């Protein structure tokens, strides 16, 4: 089980920055900017949340297998494919939370900081980000649980290659297929615990919101 666990942790470590930066950025744009096609973007971003993972995986397979330039990158059925598979369904969760978080920050605080002589970057990191903190952390907890538990898309575009692209969820699937329930139990319990703690973290963040 150590092999798949290590793969899973590496995937999580590499997909988290993608999820946070991409999801946070999309959430910020949706919360603060007005532009044509905003509605379409918000729908597209949410799409991976409700599509069956096999469908998302299928389109990614076409994208990376058929598009001339992407095809030669050789992403499919390798470790990078796992990172992509983990990120795609998790980014919408992060974007949703970030959008809610940034919308909740009264823009008067940012305006006040601007008139106090601070530039946009400084305002963002000292005012906007700390005030949206709770929503962002809740989004982070939920999206990392989603990334850690990613199964369908990974299977479609990264395969289930032991030692290379076999993550914990895929490992459980393989163990059950060979009727090796004892090993499946260990991995399943680990993932269930991770899921529970992420929900617990979200709950704590929500309860502390009023303070």
């Amino acid at each position, binding site marked *: 089980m150590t092999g798949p666990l290590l793969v899973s942790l590496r995937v999580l470590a590499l997909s988290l920055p993608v999820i946070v930066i991409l999801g946070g950025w999309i959430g910020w744009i949706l919360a603060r900017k007005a532009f044509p096609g905003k509605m379409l973007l918000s729908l597209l971003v949410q799409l991976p949340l409700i599509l069956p993972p096999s469908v998302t995986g299928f389109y990614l397979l076409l994208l990376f297998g058929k598009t001339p330039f992407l095809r030669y990158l050789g992403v499919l059925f390798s470790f990078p494919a796992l990172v992509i598979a983990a990120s795609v369904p998790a980014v919408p969760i992060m974007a949703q939370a970030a959008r809610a978080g940034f919308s909740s920050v009264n823009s008067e605080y940012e305006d*006040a900081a601007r*008139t*106090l002589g601070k530039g946009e970057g400084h305002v963002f990191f000292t005012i906007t980000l700390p005030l949206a903190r709770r929503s962002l952390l809740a989004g982070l907890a939920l999206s990392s649980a989603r990334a850690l538990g990613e199964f369908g898309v990974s299977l479609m575009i990264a395969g289930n290659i032991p030692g290379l692209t076999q993550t914990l969820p895929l490992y459980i699937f393989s163990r059950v297929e060979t009727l090796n329930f004892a090993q499946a139990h260990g991995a399943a319990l680990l993932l269930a615990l991770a899921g529970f703690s992420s929900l617990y973290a979200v709950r704590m963040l929500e309860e502390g919101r009023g303070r």
Partner: protein
Amino acid sequence: MLHAEFTCSIGDFFLETSFNLGAETGVLFGPSGAGKSMTLRVLSGLKTPSDGEIVLGERILFSKAKKINLPPRDRRIGLLFQGLALFPHMTALQNVAYPLPSGREKRKKAEEWLKRMKLEGLEDRLPSQLSGGQRQRVALARALAAEPELLLLDEPFSALDGPLRRSLRRELRRLQHETGIPMICVTHQAEDLCSLGSKVIVLKNGRTLDTFPIERLWEKGSRGEAWNALGWGNLFRGTIARCGDGAGFCFTGRNVRLALGNCTNMPGEGVVFISPDTIRLLYPSLPIDPELQPNIFSGAVQETVLSGNTVRIYLETDDGIVWQSEHPAESYRELRLEPGSRVRFSVPPSGIECWIRGEAREGYSPPNFA
């Protein structure tokens, strides 16, 4: 010092402003929706005007012709928001330290500002743990710590009641005097106007109606003109002195004599202002509250104007003075007031605001006007 001339529109609201201000306190005065707050946003750079020019001292902040538009951070214009906008996740000290450059001096300077605003001991409180007046002073300290060249105040007293208002106004006058920073203050209350400003900029429906030095309000014969521009409240010019019987102070104007409640120890030439909502109408059949006894007048209803939940009544006394009174729409229904009805009303001494001529100008050199 400040020259502002710009046009700006949001939706179908159009703002056209033009005024000059020296090293003094300007008061933007006008009814709600006149464009006062928007004027402040444009000056501070938070809203870009469509045309015009804004010059502060030697610096061009905005010029359509020269394609200059400094961002808010480079304008050195402080803005005290109506809602104060204290950062809720920072303590009083961190709020005040926010505009200061980082370094060893930062904390010390912030502490000095807090001390100056009489906020010692409250350094570690969050804004939610401070009272309304304390929050106001923290916000003021923060705005001043940035060392602005111009300070804008958007209805700075709107959240405060009588005594706090007065003490904060005094504070502002003191700060203006000490720092010499020109200020523009938005208000729709005549009381603030008289005690703070040295120049009045009257806005209505997005236009600058009139700009005049506050001194003009004191000129003989011009009261009608200047105060009509403001258009609200009861204001009389005259003398404040000890009453004939030696008890308390009285005001004597041309046709009015009033016993005063709060205005003690300020004899001299002065102005009294009575906010319309302090005036009480009297029921003929009911005994009169002792508090209402001193200043009772009788007059005829000239006009009643219903706006929203309040009704404004214009009452003309036999001396020909027209008083404005304002009440919740449901009050005084039994009196069945209509134009021509006779009614008695009282001006409670405690509701009369007054200024002695010198006080309004405290800390300023008299403005130059012909």
